[in-house]
């Protein structure tokens, strides 16, 4: 008994040491870079990859501006924890970092009240306005002031499994409208026995892009709840029909397209397509290696009179008003994220569709990397053909709640449980969001 206690204690001690050791190592490395003259900026993110991107930006900045060197201390926290910590720090007026990544779904929380705790970027955005996909920056704006810089466009696209479509005798390029898509789906099911696609029952990615592509949204421009309007009801009915009437779709294994179950299942070539934003490329490359060279990226099918895509998801890097080096942080972020070079890096380092349109035609973009190896070289041809249609979504203070309603109640009760009709579920959700 005593022996096992000693063993246990030493194990705990060892773990504590390793965990705290990680932190120390990080600090030591930073201290080496900052030899006194350099200004230290702190940066919080929830995405390890973004740290690499910022580190690369710092190296570039220090080469270009030897007169004002900087050191960026990055802290990577889990998604929820980082946003909570930041919210509390801003709320209580102390302890916030200079810069932080804030996910779009959470951004509205930081813009509540008359004086947001974030710094506006208007002066660095204005000079390059015509080259940016402004719809993506509107998502982080409040009364004409821009508070966040996104990493990517997040264009909604269709990922087709060409192998399955070939078996069914379908040419990908013939699918233009949703009617074409459903017809092709029936053919796929008939010929191969596999579903055309999967629909999420726990997240918004199957439903929300489709309503945005038809000019609808959860809220209108003025923040009024329009969750239960005719377009939204009809679109949800279309999805329900895909599952139970046309029988071309099934509910995503695991409930959403980020679940381990889905990745393993999809990797075996079990569905002919999936619609997700461009940034989902990374998930294919990382988690579905067996589909390499089988997946092609094409524009979304269109609804009559609808748009060809919508900008989905995103993360805005912001500067907090608590920063002591606001101007320097702003200049640095502008160079790292808004310049053409920086924008190209979002592709080469992160595999994102850059937010600056003049970056897309740069020769660097067609250079082979792990994404072109996987999906072929026509990724940006697809993107260019749809990007004109990408606008902003309406992100008011009620946005987080509205999205939670769609994900937790509407989608689940209509598509999975079938306990409510699209009208009912959307009406209940809309009333709920309005009531707050």
């Amino acid at each position, binding site marked *: *008994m005593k022996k*096992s206690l000693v063993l*246990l204690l030493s194990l705990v001690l060892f773990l504590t040491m390793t965990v705290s050791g990680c932190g120390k190592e990080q600090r030591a490395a930073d201290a080496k870079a900052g030899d006194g003259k350099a200004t230290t900026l702190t940066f919080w993110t929830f995405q390890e990859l973004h740290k690499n991107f910022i580190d690369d930006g710092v190296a570039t900045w220090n080469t270009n501006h030897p007169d004002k060197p900087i050191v960026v201390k990055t802290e990577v926290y889990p998604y*929820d924890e980082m*946003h*909570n910590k930041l*919210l509390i720090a*801003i*709320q*209580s*007026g102390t302890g916030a970092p200079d810069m932080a990544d804030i996910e779009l779904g*959470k951004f*509205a*929380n*930081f813009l*509540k*009240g*008359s*004086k*947001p*705790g974030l710094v506006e970027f208007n002066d660095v955005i204005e000079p390059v306005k015509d080259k940016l996909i402004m719809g993506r920056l509107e998502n982080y704006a409040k009364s004409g002031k821009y508070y966040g810089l996104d990493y990517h466009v997040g264009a909604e696209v269709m990922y087709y499994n060409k192998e399955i479509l070939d078996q069914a005798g379908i040419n990908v390029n013939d699918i233009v409208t949703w009617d074409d898509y459903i017809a092709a789906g029936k053919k796929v099911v008939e010929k191969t026995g596999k579903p055309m696609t999967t629909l999420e*029952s*726990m997240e918004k990615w199957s439903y929300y892009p489709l309503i945005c592509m038809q000019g609808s949204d959860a809220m209108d421009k003025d923040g009024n709840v329009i969750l239960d309007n005719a377009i939204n009801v009809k679109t949800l009915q279309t999805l329900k029909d895909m599952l139970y009437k046309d029988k071309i779709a099934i509910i995503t*294994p*695991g*409930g959403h397209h980020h679940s*381990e*179950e889905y990745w*393993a*299942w999809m990797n075996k070539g079990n569905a002919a397509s999936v619609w997700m934003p461009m940034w989902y490329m990374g998930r294919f490359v990382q988690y579905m290696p067996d589909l390499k060279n089988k997946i092609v990226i094409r524009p979304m099918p269109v609804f009559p009179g609808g748009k060809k895509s919508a900008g989905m998801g995103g993360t805005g890097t912001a500067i907090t008003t608590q920063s002591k080096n606001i101007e320097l942080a702003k200049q640095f972020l502008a160079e790292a994220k808004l310049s053409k070079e920086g924008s190209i890096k979002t592709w080469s380092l992160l595999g994102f569709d850059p937010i600056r349109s003049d970056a897309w035609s740069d020769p660097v973009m067609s250079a082979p990397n792990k994404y072109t190896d996987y999906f072929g070289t026509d990724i940006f041809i697809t993107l260019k053909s749809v990007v004109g249609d990408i606008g902003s979504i309406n992100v008011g203070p009620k946005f*987080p*709640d509205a999205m*939670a309603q769609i*994900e*937790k*109640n509407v*989608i*689940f*009760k209509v598509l*999975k*449980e079938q306990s409510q009709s699209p009208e009912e579920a959307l009406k209940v959700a809309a009333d*709920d969001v309005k*009531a*707050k």
Partner: protein
Amino acid sequence: MLEPPVVALNKSYNRLSKIKTLFACQKKAPYLFVLPFVVSFLVFFLYPIISTVIMSFQRIDGPESITFIGLKNYKNLINPHFFNALWVTTRYTFWTMLVLIPLPLLLAVFLNKKTTIGKKYFKSAFFMPALTSVIVAGLFFRLAFGEQETTLVNSILGVFGIKPMVWLQDPEGSMFAMVLLCTWRWLGVNIIYFLSGLQGIPVELYESASIDGANEIQQFWHITLPSLKPVIMYVLTISVYGGYSMFAESFALWSGPRSPGEIGMTIVNYLYQEGFNNNNLGFASAIGITLFVLVMIVNVIQLWVSGFFKKEGV
């Protein structure tokens, strides 16, 4: 030349002896010893409790826009989501009490027997899960309860010819997963409570009972159970508290307060969702205060029913 160090030594000696007398003083020493607790209680518990009460009457939009809105936060609690959370949490608490009192009690009785083989091994094996992080364990349980045929639980069911189930998108299935996770985690802790209670029962009672011809079941019913009543009361009280304040199990199974159709939405998950995901800290504070009142009511009823407030010997 040697004088100054001596003075210093004297001084430090004096200070040391002062501290010594303080520790030895019967009047002051007790206060000194509880001081660390009192200070940490005031700073880390009382102050947050008071500000939570104040915040529950406020609408907080940002650092500089705070408005008093009276009882509006409490009125907003009358909504289907809160009632659903209350229902889920009550069901969960009920099931955990139903499982986590009889089961560890029986296991403790067996572990306390002289004839049981491998007692030490089982004691540590049952207790081990309590040392793991619930987030790590939750991740394991989430994957074990996955919906594919190949996941742990479904493949076990497959052996018995039962079809694979979609556990975590079904109200009953997910309740089962949550209660199982809780049982797995807290079984060992409750066994420890019952074991220490069992070891306090005098052996003579059993000896005289067996001389009188009582069998094992009679002994358990008439000696073990009544003697363990205080421990059972204690475990019941902490189970009510633990059940109503459950957060991490549900949080880990659905990676956030995101269970579909709110099938796993507990009160504390609702509090978390409103406070942090929707940045409504005032409303979240009102949920917290309400939870506190609810748990107090349930505990007082339960203690009253069990006769805890009756005077000794009456």
